[in-house]
């Protein structure tokens, strides 16, 4: 039986953590003299009141087991998006709460799919909050709350495991709270570096911060209608490409490189090599396909746009500089493939994750080897360590579940009357937390024309993708709730 009391308690604590970030948008509202301050203040107040109320009525002590951890994290995300949607709804950014919820969930899950047709008409505070959700959701709402709230200490590992992406959740240091803090410190330091570089590129502080949120969280919301393409600057493209690539790598590696002052860790890590290899290969081939199609006059320009698009999609960011729908089929196809691969474990990126794809390839190779040598005894290793059967089967079943959710959701969208490319890519892009897809949801379009039902399906996909399928899907099994 799931102990609901303690779940409510932990959920309340998780949700309240977003409040200071919501308030951080207000200075920009003041500076740009926009009229969104009441919406932000009321939203923050509502979050605090409901959060504290839930906290006060629920038991503070209790065992947080596996099930409680999963439920608290999933519920925490559902509620964070519910309260995160309030500024959009109260200000009137969207006519319906469905749209506001879609936008907030898209923000927290770092999807970056927008239901907003004209972004630039929105006030600064709303746009700041919209991008801010990426930054919080990137490293994780739960990791954030673990870092700042000592009360989550007991059973925190269950929460951590349920949120951190990847087949295993590793700590940096023995204490979970310290681990969460250091993750956020590394995250903040890299984020600050990007802001400085963007400022140096001539962007305003507001634009630098919001694009940094989108990059570091691998989200993809931009306060500009034309996304990063707005600036038409090779420098900005390059900086953002580089930081998207960093954010899509495992933060454990960043932490180790930083604490040991040694970059060799990257080269030793199998997943990172696979990630970098995929990016390099697809960037070069896509650039050549662009050159061959004669879209850009120079190889340098082809490369610039190819690297931006490839990194933007594999890291599941979804920023755009060019409408890649105008690219040759090879470009579409690689981007669609990349939507499934995603970033590394322990990164802010989404989708299946490089480590899992890499391990699936290893499992397949192993199977082929055993056809040739039926008597061979072999183990599958990852970074020099033997991978146990539990982890292998969890990787395989996650892949199957991911595809199952993908198939069901895209079938549902097709049923609602969408064309195949739109249905497939919209689900791939929301389930993988990328944002823009192809067809009617390409980088030059948005999700505003979707029906409410289609929006809820996509919203669900975002959550399922961010929490890596299991944490959400398990709630639909009656076994989970049984005594």
């Amino acid at each position: 039986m799931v102990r609901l009391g303690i779940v409510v308690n932990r959920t309340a604590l998780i949700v309240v953590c977003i409040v200071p970030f919501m308030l951080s948008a207000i200075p920009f509202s003041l500076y740009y003299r926009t009229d969104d301050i009441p919406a932000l203040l009321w939203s923050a107040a509502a979050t605090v009141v409901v959060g504290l109320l839930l906290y006060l009525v629920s038991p503070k002590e209790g065992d947080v087991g596996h099930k409680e951890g999963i439920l608290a994290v999933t519920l925490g995300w559902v509620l964070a998006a519910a309260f995160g949607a309030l500024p959009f709804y109260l200000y009137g950014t969207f006519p319906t709460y469905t749209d506001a919820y879609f936008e907030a969930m898209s923000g927290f899950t770092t999807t970056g799919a927008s239901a907003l047709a004209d972004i630039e008409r929105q006030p600064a505070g709303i746009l700041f909050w919209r991008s801010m959700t990426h930054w919080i959701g990137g490293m994780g709402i739960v990791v954030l709350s673990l870092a700042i709230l000592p009360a989550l200490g007991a059973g925190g590992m269950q929460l951590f495991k349920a949120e951190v992406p990847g087949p295993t959740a590793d700590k940096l240091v023995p204490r979970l709270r310290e681990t969460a803090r250091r993750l956020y410190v590394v995250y903040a330091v890299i984020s600050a570096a990007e802001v400085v570089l963007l400022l140096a590129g001539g962007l305003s502080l507001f634009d630098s911060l919001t694009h940094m949120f989108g990059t570091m969280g691998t989200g993809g919301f931009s306060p500009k209608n034309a996304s990063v393409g707005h600036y038409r600057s090779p420098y900005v493209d390059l900086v953002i490409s580089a930081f998207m690539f960093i954010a899509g790598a495992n933060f454990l590696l960043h932490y180790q490189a930083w604490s040991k002052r040694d970059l060799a860790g990257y080269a030793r890590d199998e997943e990172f090599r696979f990630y970098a290899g995929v990016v390099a290969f697809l960037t070069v081939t896509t650039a050549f396909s662009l050159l061959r199609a004669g879209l850009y006059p120079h190889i340098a320009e082809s490369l610039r746009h190819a690297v931006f698009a490839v990194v933007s999609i594999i890291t599941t960011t979804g920023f755009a500089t060019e409408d890649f729908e105008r690219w040759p089929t090879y470009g579409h196809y690689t981007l669609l493939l990349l939507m499934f691969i995603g970033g590394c474990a322990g990164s802010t990126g989404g989708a299946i994750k490089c480590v899992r794809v890499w391990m699936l390839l290893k499992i397949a190779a192993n199977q082929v080897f055993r056809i040739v040598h039926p008597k061979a005894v072999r183990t599958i290793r990852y970074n020099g360590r033997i991978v146990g059967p539990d982890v292998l089967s969890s990787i395989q079943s996650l892949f199957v579940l991911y595809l199952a959710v993908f198939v069901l959701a895209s079938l549902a969208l097709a049923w609602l009357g969408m064309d195949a490319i739109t249905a497939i890519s919209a689900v791939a892009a929301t389930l993988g937390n990328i944002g823009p897809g192809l067809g009617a949801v390409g980088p030059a379009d948005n999700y505003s024309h979707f029906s409410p039902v289609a929006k809820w399906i996509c919203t669900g996909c975002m959550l399922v993708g961010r929490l890596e399928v299991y944490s959400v899907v398990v709630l639909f099994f009656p076994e989970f709730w049984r005594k």
Partner: protein
Amino acid sequence: MRTIVIGAGEVGYHIAERLSREGHDIVVVEQDPEVRTRVQDRLDVMTVEGNGASPRVLEEAGIREADLIIAVADIDEVNIAACLLAKEYGVPKRIARARNPDFSEHAFLDHGKRLGIDLLINPNAVVAEEVLDLVKTPAAAEVGKFAGGKVLILGIQIGPEAPILDRPLKALRPLHATTPFVVVAILREGRLILPDGNTTLRPGDHIYVVARRESINPILTLLGKKDEVAERVFVVGGGRIGLRVAQLLEEAHLKVKLLERNPARCEELARMLARTIVLHGDGTDVNTLLEEGISDIDAVVAVTDDEAANILAALVAKERGAKKAMALVKRPHLIELLPHVGIDAGISPRILTASVILRFVRRGHVLSIFEIPQSEAETLEMMVVPQAAVAGKEVRDAGLPAGAIVAAIVHGDEIEIPRGDSVFRPDDHVVVFALPKAIPEVERLFT
């Protein structure tokens, strides 16, 4: 403080849990992946899978930055090798468990010093000492010693015949002039209660009393317990622990009978024990026990490898008239069940070993620790250092946190069971009972 714990068995798990709560950064090295996962999920510690005697594994656990290593894996040699390696890696403090007395007692090894081990703990020896203490105080289920044995804490099960029943504790105050004592805690239906003057004791309560050694007898009378001097002891099980217990009891000039099932082992035991009567037989067999006069026995100690057999043997003995029956149990939570079935005391090697280790780790300001089972409350003996916050203050003004009770103040040879106006003088030893949440504050006040 970074601490590496090798082995997440009963002792390792418990120590990791306690030290993690006390602020150590713990890395647990465990070979069994299933156990490792359980530790990782339940405790706020880092875990590494592998053999604790492997430099590769130890490096992964961060041995170069470690300040303390506690090697409590199942195999003695692994623990010793881990400490030897830890010394080479420059870990300042090293603790190991070794069950084989060849390691822990041989003069050449000098209690582990020659191997670079600061505390080499033999759980069997610790168990044997506990048994001796329990045999010497027949009425108590647990005994803890403070101030070199001058102050005792006794865990006593209250029977229906105790004269103290139905009277509030404050009614006993006149007695304090002659036999001062403090009831620091009551375990009632599995919950720990801190008594005040209005609390009345009920049959079935398990109380913890702190008193001077020489006041124990009158207190026991008050509680309806006869304090007889034990003479005849029956030990069931002649394994390493049984042998050790028998040796220690022999040294204390008690009459010991030792029952062992394996005839070959009986031969060995007979050679090693000079005055003990070694018997061949089954400890749960009533006839054997009756033949050997179990009804005249003062204390029965069942210490075979099989905890179920121990409980059974203790039950049978108790039922046939043994005055006190004790059983060794491996799973500590079984201890709280024992009083309900009439067994007087449970002995848990895990709890005993862990508390010896904890005492060593906290050594310095904490001189001695007695853990209240099932509650994580502790009775601590601490020295009042001159710069301590409490030095020179009266007990009531010392700012002790709720959940802490001063049970005794020892000035040199003089032992005071304190009142509100008693004063903490520098260099006094103070015995304090504290609930888990009060422990850090208590330690802070005394340092």
